């Protein structure tokens, strides 16, 4: 009962004091406003980076494993991995035969160098050529395409057919339908069967957008056997991905004749590897960013503390009167804590109001939105800043000697 009455009185005093010193309150609050705006925008930006990454990583498929010579992200010695033997197409068949948990397997061969592709008088340089089988669509989870992928017969027969990445199709065919047209890939003619939908994202190179897919036998015929080979393996059940991975590892070790105890001389890559690595990076960015922006909040807090000291000194007489009338230390402490907390809370709310339209501008550059959680966090932070920076001044007020405070003019 007591504490509630005092709380209500404290709030009333706080708002009366803030209103009585409008300009001063506005200027003091500005520090908190700026602090909350920068923290909120930083959080929004980090959210944007996260989203962009997750969207990009989704292109790799959560249920696809990539068996290849190189790991995607490695902290190990590059020199020892360079000595790993190359991948062989036969491994794909072995995995398909021996691992029951998988849905589809496709060898994917990519040219080391970029090639020129042309249609009529239009051409595009720097294209990655990928040779694969008809199982590719099933094995990569990348099935969004216009037209069709090549059939098993076309695949095994090494027919001169191809499927284009979205960016390539845009470049070669400004107008008109690419399907059925014949393009030249590094000089040889291929008929377009389909076009993949645009994947976008930050891993441009690794998505289908800038690639051309041709049957693997046609690829080997044109570019030779010694190109970079990845075996895409798609598991049936994502929850059994770990088991599947162990089985694939076993098949691969057997195929390679690795003695027990020797390290793998191949890598099984997954989207998770990227996500894990990247979320570590974003966490570091988030921590550093949040630290820097919270410095401005800290400065704002110091401003509040400063003005609260002024406020306490100015109102020494009032404190004396209240004490003479029977206000306990707690009541005085609470009065000033409430004042600084209210100041900061108002600052925080204004900060959020300012940050919201700004986050829409950020959204133009980096697709994002203000995370809802940050609204709650910002309000909480401003309250905490208010209480921390108000504590010393409030404590000074609370322990004033009533006789001296009353004598103060």
């Amino acid at each position, binding site marked *: *009962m*007591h504490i509630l*009455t*005092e709380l*209500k*009185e404290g709030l009333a005093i706080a708002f*009366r004091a803030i209103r*009585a010193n409008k300009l001063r309150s506005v200027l003091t609050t500005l520090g908190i406003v700026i602090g909350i705006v920068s923290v909120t925008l930083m959080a929004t930006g980090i959210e944007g980076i996260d989203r962009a990454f997750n969207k990009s990583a989704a292109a790799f498929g959560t249920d696809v494993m990539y068996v290849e010579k190189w790991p995607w992200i490695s902290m190990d010695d590059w020199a020892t991995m360079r000595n790993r033997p190359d991948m062989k197409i036969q491994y794909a068949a072995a995995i398909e035969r021996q691992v029951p948990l998988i849905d589809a397997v496709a060898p994917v061969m990519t040219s080391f160098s970029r090639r020129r592709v042309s249609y009529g008088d239009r051409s595009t340089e720097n294209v990655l050529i990928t040779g694969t089988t008809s199982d590719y669509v099933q094995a990569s989870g990348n099935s969004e395409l216009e037209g069709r992928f090549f059939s098993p017969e076309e695949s095994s027969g090494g027919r001169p057919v191809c499927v284009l990445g979205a960016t390539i199709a845009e470049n070669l065919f400004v107008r008109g339908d690419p399907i059925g047209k014949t393009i030249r890939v590094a000089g040889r003619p291929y008929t377009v069967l389909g076009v993949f939908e645009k994947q976008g994202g930050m891993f441009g190179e690794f998505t289908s957008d800038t690639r051309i897919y041709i049957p693997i036998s046609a690829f080997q015929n044109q570019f030779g056997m010694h190109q970079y080979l990845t075996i895409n393996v798609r598991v049936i059940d994502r929850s059994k991905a770990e088991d599947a991975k162990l089985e694939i590892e076993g098949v691969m070790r057997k195929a390679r004749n690795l003695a027990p105890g020797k390290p793998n001389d191949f890598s099984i890559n997954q989207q998770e590897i990227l996500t894990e690595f990247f979320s570590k990076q974003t966490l570091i960015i988030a921590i550093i960013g949040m630290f820097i922006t919270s410095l401005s909040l800290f400065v704002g807090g110091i401003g509040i503390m400063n003005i609260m000291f002024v406020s306490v000194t100015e109102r020494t*007489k*009032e404190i*004396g*009167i*209240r*004490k*003479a*009338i*029977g*206000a*306990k*230390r*707690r*009541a005085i402490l609470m009065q000033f804590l409430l004042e600084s907390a209210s100041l900061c809370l108002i600052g925080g709310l204004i900060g959020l109001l300012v940050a919201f339209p700004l986050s829409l501008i950020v959204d133009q550059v980096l697709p994002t939105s203000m995370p809802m959680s940050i609204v709650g966090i910002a309000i909480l932070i401003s309250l905490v800043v208010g209480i921390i920076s108000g504590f010393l001044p409030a404590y000074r007020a609370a*322990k004033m*000697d*009533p*006789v001296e405070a*009353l004598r103060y003019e």
Partner: protein
Amino acid sequence: MNTIIEFKSIVKTYDMGGAEEVLALRGINLTIDRNEYVAIMGPSGSGKSTLMNIIGCLDTPTSGLYQFNGLNVSEMNDNELAKIRNKEIGFVFQTFNLLARSDSLHNVELPLIYAGVPAAERRRRAKETLGQVGLGDRTHHKPNELSGGQRQRVAVARALVTRPSIILADEPTGNLDSRTGEEIMMLFEELHRMGNTIILVTHEADIAEHAHRTVRLRDGMIESDEPVKKRKTYAAAKVS
């Protein structure tokens, strides 16, 4: 038990830094009973402010025993003293000491807020007390919209509203013209007649003559303590 205030060899010294010490009170023995009307007099520097601060529980003695209503005040901590001030003592100051930003009603409600009285009852009691001092129609005026006499009446209402054991007035007419001062003194007389205990600290002899007993201080000691022989009264005193 009729004794409200009992001082036994109260000493108060102020540390002025270094080895210097000022002896403000040098062993005061004083007893004040319920419904007394006492004036404490003395020239400046006599220790009467110090005495008032100790009686009012704003300060504690350096040594000696102070019993208030049988409670040993001299050993109380800050919060216990605050509670005594809130419930048992009503202060009236020379400079009124009202909260400038609050209206009369809120100023009078203030002690009840710290006593934790619920809002509705608080309002009722504050209004009633303002009516008692003749300001029933000034509840929503701020101090700067009131005359000096009216401000002091608000202060008296604030002192009365908790129904304290004593009313402690420090030069209550010091900032008022003589006519308004007389009005305030009439108010005190009426309050005394209604059974309140009043302690009046003043250096003006004619103000002190309203009291029933005068305690004179000099150099931190009681010089004299005697009943007022020729009391000023207002036969027709009537609180409006």
